[in-house]
């Protein structure tokens, strides 16, 4: 996990300036020195591992599939399962690898890069199923794919629900 933590900051910074695809390709090259390796996973959830305060009550927006941040989510909204749009429900673990969307916030007119993490280690939440696919791509472009189980690399790899975490403004 350590290399992922080191690179989290770099990932966030790069994400603000570049597309998801080139971001991952750049990091892949940085880590390995190779240009043609598959896209690499990145841990963006290091800070989510140890919550310092109780989970906030989710807003009505966060429980609504139409909420702008959910433009490429596919799964059960964690905000309906004991978490919020940015926190996993108690007793679950967040996935260290994710897929990415670019969503338009009508509130401020900006496009944001959003990381969709799965929350793992319990059976499916089963509530607030939400399947939106703006910019979603098939499995051959894995970093944009919301069909695979992103808990795959967790010690407890059962899928429970999905969150949507703003990484930064997408620069045009």
């Amino acid at each position, binding site marked *: 996990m350590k290399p992922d933590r080191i690179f989290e900051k770099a990932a966030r910074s790069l994400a603000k300036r570049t597309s998801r695809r080139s971001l991952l390709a750049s990091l892949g090259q940085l880590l390995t020195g190779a240009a043609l390796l598959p896209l690499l996973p990145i841990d963006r959830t290091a800070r989510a591992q140890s919550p310092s305060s109780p989970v906030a009550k989710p807003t009505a927006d966060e429980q609504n599939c139409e909420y702008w941040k959910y433009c490429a989510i596919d799964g059960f909204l964690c905000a309906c399962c004991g978490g919020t749009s940015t926190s996993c429900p108690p007793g679950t673990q967040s996935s260290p690898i994710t897929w990415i969307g670019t969503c338009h916030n009508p509130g401020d007119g900006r496009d944001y890069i959003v990381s969709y993490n799965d929350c793992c280690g*319990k059976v499916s939440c089963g509530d607030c199923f939400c399947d939106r696919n703006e910019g979603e791509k098939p499995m051959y472009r894995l970093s944009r794919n919301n069909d695979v189980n992103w808990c795959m690399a967790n010690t407890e790899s059962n899928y429970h629900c999905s969150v949507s975490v703003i990484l930064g403004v997408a620069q045009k």
Partner: protein
Amino acid sequence: MLTLAAGTVSSWAAAPAGPQPSPLPAEHLTIATVGPKSPHWVYVVDYAYANEIDSRVYLFDGDTYRRIGQIDTGFIPGVNLSPDGKTTAVATTYFARGGHGTRTDVVEFNDNNTLAKTGEIVIPPKHAQTLAMLFTVAYSSDGKFVYTPYLTPAASFGVLDPARKKVLSEIDTAGCTLVFPWGPNRVSSICESGRLLTVTLDAQGKEASRTSSEPFFNPDQDPVFAQAVPLPDGYAYVSFLGQVHEIDFTQPKLVMRTPWSLVSATEKGTWRPGGVQIGAVHRSLGKLFVPMHRGGDGSHKAGGTEIWVFDLKSHQRTARWPIDTKELGSVIAVQVSQDAAPLLFAATETANVLVLDAQTGKMQHVEKKLGQTPQLLLNP
């Protein structure tokens, strides 16, 4: 319980007045058998979204509208049938404590004559967990190899020996994913570059050689569904905007045919294919069935409000069959039987399975709520 049961029988026996009918004969508990196989059977894979560790396959009869039985398939499985139709292979995951605990991945084999599990191969705990794909477990054409894709998220696939129940090899696919089998020893995977990587195996199931095709689609401009449609001589990869990329797998090198379109120039971008299992082909009739909907970018998983039928030789649309989506839900998966009086099966977003006459589009039956989230249909 025994005393209570005896008392109940006694009081029932004393109740009726007048002439007594003959008592019912004693019954014998039996196990039902599957019965003679029919081309109108369909294997319906229910991914059971609300409790994904409990997915299953229902064997359903399109003539009698009867559920024949069930195969348990674990957590986000790949499911496929052997070339002779006798076996259902399931690549799946089990957790030691139900929803949690040590993960074990297996490929399980089920006898389609009994629907009983007959064996398994434990595989590395990394089978690709993705929903409703024909290509997350697959047989070679002679049934001697089984392939299952791995994802960690690094991509590779395993080669298994179903007779000796052994893992033979793992083959790195350089980021390309899924297993599109061809012939006795070839496996292709689809790549982000728009190419297909094809690995040829030796008799021991090890890599003998690999080739990469020319790019045949642009994943930025018009991605293809990874859910290819099997053709008699290869696969068709259908794009989000309705381009059909037919690829001939029978030659030493893959042959890309000239792409053709499901939609006219005026329909392009408005009418789109969509759903999960986005096409089915009747091989001898040369007909392609596709669920189509009106939608924009990002609607590629929206189900069809109509099923369109195409002639694979002329590429002409021969029929449009509207679906009562308010009543039945939109169509997210299609499959067609291969006999001379074919049935078209269609699963909807609201878990109904529709049975249509595949030559006329006439609705024969609606099986309401066949499971929870049926999204993949397999033919015997």
